[in-house]
């Protein structure tokens, strides 16, 4: 029977079926992995106090979040110098986030489960997110205002929350002044400098002109000085309160409230509090800028940069892609040449993206940008304006990278439109252009949309070429702001994909950054999957529509 079964070919069919299953498991497993890891990061983790016997035999107390557990062969642990009781083949070890990087030097460590003597979850353990040095974990003791103890004991929690919200309010003001007003003044000053240099280059640096510039500069300077005094006052104000807390080993530390971002008591939080916390964290992630070398905070500038770059790219790629497709399908003589062109265009979609990056860097940045600088931005020399990687060149490079996608999709759409429609329009006396504009293109518009969405999906996920033509790990300002001329095409920008690469691989503290990378990856995957699914939906809808027409 076994033999017959093999002869029938059934086993091989099962084998081929298994490959499909494996592929499906891979796809969904991957998305699930990213989703679980990306979303769980924001959930507040409980803080555990461990009594632990160190490798040296000393007893110690640790306060930490448990991040991971795994089993290790006893052999390896013994090699590493652990004395283990019992003769198990495997022992569990845990990855702890102990925080307090400023005190301990490291905020992650592994401990062996077996050597934990006791564990507890004290309710008054506090977790504090800080502006630098990562999280703080410990027991709050008291709050000092200008060196005087104001409250201690149980009342600290309430008072701390109250005073922190005050400091955060002040911080918001400071941020507004620094980024907004002072930013604008600096920008204005820089423009004045360039204007003066321009006048000198043109030989128009007359006393009157120079005096006008000087006046404006003095005006800016006055404004700046006023703001500076205000800032100093605000900063002084934030430094009023200090929290006194003890850490696991009993050491007493002072944390100024000015250094705090968020305070919470994870072991005390109810489910609804945790949910609220989760939502706040997710909101911070998508709406805030990064902190601490991108390992904390949000990814708003990266989202903004990605969207901005993709938008500029779409504006360029759509008309050109459509025109090229219309030319190939409607105007060019169909022959060997158009066939070759079609093959070439198809193949360009398969050319490695890094090649486009190299082309963009050489041609756009150094050649075009260099010449633009020489012609129009001589006053800024030797600092390059367009002769350096920036968002414009990134968008252009990606436009070239994705133009084959738009061409192919549009052509497909055009070829699906029945000939009878064109002929009908022509027979009624419309010119070719009118036929095209009023009947063919509107009918092909869903196909164009599909092409555009696919192009956007591809552009949003592409990182390699951007690394050469304009992406940076931390951009000081967004490419769009309230300073004239609002849209700054010469600026560098941040990008979600590059953010993943940079934080995951170039970050000094990979362990701490990892959850954030998962979250960023999830965001990017979500955007791209949604874009692709919508493209597929549009395509299917389109097919249905023309099937009806052809009948």
């Amino acid at each position, binding site marked *: 029977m076994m033999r017959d079964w093999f002869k029938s070919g059934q086993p091989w069919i099962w084998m081929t079926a298994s490959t499909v299953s494996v592929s499906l498991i891979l796809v969904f497993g*991957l998305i699930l992995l990213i989703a679980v890891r990306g979303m769980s990061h924001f959930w507040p983790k409980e803080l555990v106090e461990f009594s632990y016997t160190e490798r040296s035999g000393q007893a110690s107390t640790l306060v930490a979040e448990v991040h991971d557990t795994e089993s290790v062969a006893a052999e390896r642990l013994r090699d590493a110098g652990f004395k283990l009781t019992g003769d198990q083949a495997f022992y569990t070890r845990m990855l702890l986030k102990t925080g307090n990087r400023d005190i301990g030097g490291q905020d992650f460590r592994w401990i062996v489960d077996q050597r934990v003597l006791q564990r507890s979850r004290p309710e008054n353990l506090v977790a504090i997110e800080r502006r630098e040095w990562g999280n703080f974990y410990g027991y709050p003791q008291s709050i000092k205002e200008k060196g005087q103890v104001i409250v201690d004991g149980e009342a600290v929690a309430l008072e701390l929350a109250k005073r922190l919200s005050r400091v955060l309010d002040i911080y918001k003001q400071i941020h507004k002044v620094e980024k907004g007003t002072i930013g604008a003044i600096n920008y204005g000053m820089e423009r004045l400098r360039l204007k003066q240099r321009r006048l000198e280059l043109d030989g128009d640096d007359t006393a009157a002109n120079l005096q006008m510039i000087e006046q404006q500069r003095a005006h800016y300077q006055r404004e700046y000085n006023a703001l500076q005094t205000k800032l100093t006052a605000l900063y002084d104000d934030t430094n009023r309160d200090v929290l006194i807390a003890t850490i696991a080993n009993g050491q007493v530390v002072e944390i100024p409230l000015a250094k705090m971002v968020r305070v919470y008591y994870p072991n005390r939080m109810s489910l609804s509090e945790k949910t609220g916390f989760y939502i706040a964290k997710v909101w911070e992630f998508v709406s805030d800028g990064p902190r601490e070398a991108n390992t904390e905070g949000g990814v708003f500038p990266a989202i903004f940069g990605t969207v901005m770059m993709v938008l500029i790219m779409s504006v360029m790629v759509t008309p050109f892609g459509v025109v*090229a497709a219309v030319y190939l399908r409607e105007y060019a003589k169909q022959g060997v040449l158009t066939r070759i062109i079609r093959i070439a265009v198809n193949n360009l979609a398969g050319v490695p993206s*890094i090649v486009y990056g190299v082309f963009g860097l050489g041609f756009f940045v150094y050649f075009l940008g260099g010449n633009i600088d020489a012609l129009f931005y001589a006053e800024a020399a030797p600092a390059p304006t367009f002769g350096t990687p920036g968002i414009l060149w990134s968008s252009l490079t990606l436009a*070239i990278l994705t133009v084959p996608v738009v061409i192919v999709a549009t052509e497909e759409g055009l070829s699906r439109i029945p000939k009878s429609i064109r002929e009908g329009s022509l027979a009624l006396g419309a010119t070719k252009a009118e036929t095209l504009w009023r009947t063919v293109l509107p009918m092909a518009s869903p196909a164009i949309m599909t092409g555009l969405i696919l192009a956007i999906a591809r552009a949003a*996920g592409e990182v390699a070429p951007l690394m050469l033509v304009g992406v940076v790990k931390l951009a000081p300002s967004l490419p769009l702001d309230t300073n004239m001329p609002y849209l700054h095409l010469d600026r560098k920008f941040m990008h979600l994909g590059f953010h993943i690469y940079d934080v995951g691989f170039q970050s000094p503290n990979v362990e701490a950054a990892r959850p954030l990378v998962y979250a960023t990856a999830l965001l990017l*995957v979500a955007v791209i999957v949604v874009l692709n699914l919508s493209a597929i939906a549009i395509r299917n809808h389109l097919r249905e529509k023309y099937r009806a027409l052809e009948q």
Partner: protein
Amino acid sequence: MSDSQLSNNNASLFETLGPELARRRRWRVVKDYIAKYSVGIGGVSVILTIVLIFFYLLYVVLPLFYSASTESVADYPVPANDPGANTRLLALEEQNEIAVRFTADARGVFFQATSGEIINDIALPLPKGVSVTSFARGNGPTDLVAYGLSDGRALLVKHKYTLSYPNDQRLITPSIVYPLGKDAIEVDDYGRPITQLAFRDDEEGTSLVALVGGNELILTHLAKEESLLEDEISFERTVTTIADNLKSVKFMLLDKEQRNLYLADAENNVSHYDISDKQAVELLYRIPVAKSNVRITAMTFLSGELSLLIGTSVGQISQWFVVKDHFNKQKLYQVRSFELGDSAITAIAQEQRRKGFVAADERGDFGFFHTTAERKLLIASVGKAVADIALSPRGNAMLIQDQSGNLHFWKIHNEHPEVSWSSLWSKVWYESYEEPQYVWQSSSASNDFEPKLSLTPLVFGTLKGAFYAMLFAVPLAILGAIYTAYFMAPKMRRMVKPSIETMEALPTVILGFLAGLWFAPYVEDNLPGIFSLLLIMPIGVLLFAYGWQCLPRRIRQLVPDGWFAAILVPVIILIAWFSLSMSHPLELWLFDGDTRRWLSVSMGIDFDQRNALVVGFAMGFAVIPTIFSIAEDAIFSVPKHLSFGSLALGATPWQTLVHVVLLTASPGIFSAVMIGLGRAVGETMIVLMATGNTPVMDFSVFQGMRTLAANIAVEVPESEVDSTHYRVLFLAALVLFLFTFLFNTLAEIVRQRLREKYSSL
């Protein structure tokens, strides 16, 4: 356009008169023309832009392969106030404006390089009653020269150029300075005349090797001692006799590390002394460097002073450097040689910033060469036997003195001598390497660095990565495509296909990040599990299938045909879970609890955490959807009547598939694989993140690699525009472009043929 618009049109049509109508029609025709031409121009320009990519890459790459060229700028008699004195050294400064000649009667004469007009003629301060008996030049960038004197002393001088910009005009002021003081240094304790001299000077001290008394070679070393309190520098002087019965010394070269001394004698032998210990000099060996019927006529260092360039009386220049042999003994090897002509080589000048040199001969011919690239870049002639050559520090101008007392000033265009077919693709014997190798090492902090620009390890890495990716992806994708297209229920197919195709759009940066930060450590930890998974999976699936077959028909019919893939999902998850949880026990049982150590100790296999296995999985994952989608299309569009015919004749579905469907679809499957390969070859982010990016040539699955694409991404932002390195990276991009373009075109043509065949069936 709406109905109201139409009626409007009609109304106006009736109301307007003839001319108005004609004008309107003309305008419509004009609009049509405008549309036609603007679409034409737009379309053609987009297509041209695409073509531009190729030509721009080519435009950047081409200068790499240009030969050098020179042009004669000026010829003039040797500028001198006393024409009798011989030139001992010619040198050009950085900007090629001013040249200097040091003469045998101890004068330093600065003159305009283009005209020979003397700017400054400085007599060096020789002690009274002492004459010049020898001369030596220092290493390039320091611009030092030394005169050996008849009283056993030596005078070190330096020619120096200061730049200033009065009235926005560049002004170069030459001067002579005395780094060790204006007084001559005592070299020989007995005051014998120095007949040959070699020296080197650096921050730590100065070494002078002098031939005195006809056959005694001494080494005088001045070690600098800076006292902390005073600014003054004092010297500790030691004198050692190297040899005291030398027969003849034709050339002496001392390297800049002040460790090695090379002597060439009249019998064509080179003796190599180790002088790193200034008090105990050792003769390492003495070997012949030329046949007995030729003579050594010139000898100098290549920049970096690791290689000797030896010119002979028959027009040959050979490069020699010290290599350690199997017994760890040093020995000079002739690495390569160049031919200028058949006359004796009279002068060799090395480039200061590259591994190139100029050699000239008795006939007046001179040639530019590059050692690493083994390139003869240019041969030209000044017409008369050449006495001396000075190459400017930037290597873009030179001054030649012929033996009849004329100077020739030449401009040189020699931008990229480092690149040749052999330096890019063949094994090259680099300085201080034991044997010829393929190496990519493009930059270093030092100026003397020999760039190693072999693309071979990068291409090797690219193909290695692609190979492992295809090894994983091809079976999965094609078998999956077969099942999906041929056996799967249509309802399931409608769900499966888009989900696998969505995977194609997954940004590779995410795959790379997961591969590098999650999968690589996981694999390292669960190596036995991963391999047992590959083994257990097929067996497990077959066992389950057989078990399924043995189930009663009633239960089997619960799952319709074509849903096998769905019921297999939990089975496969179970198998995977089982073999991965077996990993640690297996490791303990077979590999002493640590597979990684076991591999390196018992098998001698090195294990990188980020290795080809991880890349193979991750990149395979990225190409599966590409291959799957195209192959599935090809199989699915095989005309149904072919398979129906086969089935009707009694063939089983599997037989029909193998002998009819796959055969017909094979060109399509082939093109799917080609396109997948193209994608794997050009993938950047995954390789960048999931390998160690070391350009090793090792096919081991446990080692990393560096691919062309990753290399470009890493190095382009840091390379200087239009430098050789920059252009070589563009060449790498061009290679990638052509490679993928070729594969894709091939695949596309195959696919189009197939489509035509189907439509005719």
